[in-house]
């Protein structure tokens, strides 16, 4: 509607400019016309100035809060990553020194590998939760709610509490896991204080605590697949397994994509369990640190803030790049119905 009106006004102006009523008058009129046209276009696109005021006022608390506590700090972190910090406060420009120090940090290869390994292991939660979601989708009645509740309890439990329980289960001398292993003749290690096993032990807890969350997303995705696809496939003689791979998986791919992006992002930021399940004085800590743990150590324990911020910047860039790559690659395998 507003578009046709502007087009009409523009079509009308050349004919009025054609009259010989004095150029100054017609220029002024044209200017006034242009101004009101502009104003009308602005109002059509952006609303009335009275609406603007309310818009800005309603956005203001959030915008100021996010700007002050998040956006500006991000800028500061980037700046800090190029500075070195004196013992008595105050920063000096250090150029790329922090980045160079980080790249040659002997802890880096192990920490980077642990972070990637943990994220990859965490991805195992996806097939697991798809299977459970597909199973849950077969069940009707009250038992659905019961299963969903039981699977979700690990998701809502406090990580600090969950870590405590698992540390107890993993305990080398009195833990339930090693007792069960001993029943089948295996002498279990000290899971969380042995550098060879700690990352795997943490990943198992990570998977256990996220299956219920992923399952709910996949269950919602499965609900969205129309029944008649399966009926048609059945008529064509496709078995259950064939149906799963030819109908369920492709149509579930948007959910799989979402969950894998979230999983990778959270996996690469792994920090909680290193602190909670291993602890600072654990002999396995040196072999089990993650990038996010290195950040915490440099900034808040070793007071090497510049170095810590360089790690934060590298982690952020890596996350953004990886997410961008995932969005690129998704075009090849994600089907939007």
């Amino acid at each position, binding site marked *: 509607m507003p578009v046709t009106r502007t087009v009409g006004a523009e079509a009308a102006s050349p004919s009025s400019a054609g009259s010989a009523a004095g150029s100054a008058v017609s220029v002024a009129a044209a200017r006034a016309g242009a101004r009101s046209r502009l104003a009308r276009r602005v109002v059509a696109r952006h609303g009335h100035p009275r609406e603007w005021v*309310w818009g800005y006022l309603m956005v203001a*608390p959030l915008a100021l809060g*996010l700007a002050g506590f998040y956006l500006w700090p991000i800028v500061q972190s980037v700046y800090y990553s190029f500075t070195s910090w004196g013992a008595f406060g105050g920063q000096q420009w250090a150029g790329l020194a922090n980045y160079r120090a980080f790249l040659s940090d002997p802890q880096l290869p192990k920490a980077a590998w642990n972070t990637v390994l943990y994220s990859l292991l965490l991805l195992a939660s996806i097939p697991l939760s798809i*299977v459970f979601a597909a199973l849950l989708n077969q069940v009707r009645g009250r038992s659905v709610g019961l299963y969903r509740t*039981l699977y979700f*309890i690990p998701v*809502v439990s406090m990580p*600090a509490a969950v870590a405590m329980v698992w540390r107890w289960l993993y305990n080398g001398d009195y833990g339930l896991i090693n007792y069960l292993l001993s029943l089948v003749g295996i002498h279990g290690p000290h899971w969380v204080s042995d550098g060879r096993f700690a990352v795997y032990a943490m990943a198992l807890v990570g998977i256990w605590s996220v299956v*219920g969350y992923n399952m709910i997303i996949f269950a919602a995705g499965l609900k969205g697949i129309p029944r008649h696809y399966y009926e048609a496939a059945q008529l064509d003689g496709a078995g259950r397994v064939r149906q799963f791979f030819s109908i369920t998986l492709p149509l579930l791919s948007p*959910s799989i994509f979402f969950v894998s992006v979230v999983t990778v992002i959270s996996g690469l930021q792994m920090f909680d369990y290193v602190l909670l399940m291993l602890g600072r004085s654990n002999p396995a800590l040196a072999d089990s640190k993650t990038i996010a743990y290195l950040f915490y150590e440099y900034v808040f324990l070793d007071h090497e803030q510049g170095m810590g911020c360089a790690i934060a910047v590298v982690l952020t860039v890596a996350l953004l790049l990886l997410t961008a790559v995932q969005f690129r690659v998704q075009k090849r395998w994600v089907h939007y119905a």
Partner: protein
Amino acid sequence: MRSQRLWPVHVLLAVGAAAMVAPFLWQLLTSLQTLGEATHVPPTFLPGWRWSNYAEVFTSMPFLRQFLNTVVITVVRVAAQLLFCSMAAYAFARLRFPGRDVLFLVMLSVLMVPSQAYLLPQYQILMHLGLLNTLTGIVLPGLFSAFGTFMLRQFFLSLPLDVEEAARLDGAGPVRIFWSVMLPLAKPGLISLGVLTVLWSWNDLLWPLVVTSDAGRMPLSVGLATLQGEHVTDYPVLMAGSLLASLPMIVMFLVSQRRITEGIAFTGSK
């Protein structure tokens, strides 16, 4: 026919459910034993009914204090997020003003960045304000949420326009429409965000860990984390304490199960 083929499904689901719940049952069992029973090899599978472990939680750490801290932190964060996010989300969804979409994208960029990228400057802000080691300090950054704004904006966009249009024709201004028309309509979205925020706030660890050093000012998550660091090895008491710390969230989940699952499914579909 159908029920016959369903029993393997139930068996598999039950095995999974057992794996999910077993650690909690073991925790409960240990929490009711003496230290001697808990560290007995082979393990004893009978509870000693030692309820005094639960009483000891309150004497061996400032549990009650930290519990109340956690409640206060959570309530303030939820209230602030619901207010600020819903106001901004409504404006982003329905009001027109120059720069709106750019501003929204800028706010959203916070979601793409890991917390490590703003943690240190946030800490410095609190230090300058003299708010380290205070509840106010713990609460401050979490009053604002890009995620909540995004979620509620999607929710407002999904609401029908005609109710709002009718209110406008009746002469109601943006604030009135927001407060008396849209907020009541957005109640399911607000409840979902509220529940997710409670969950996040209750379990949040890194930020309160960094800004508190005083046991009396810590939330439960940090309290438990530092207990672990001190190598307290009275496992039954630790199990009792961690069970008590998780219990409120488990109860909240049981009560508002539908809201949580709907909220998660909603964020998953956008």
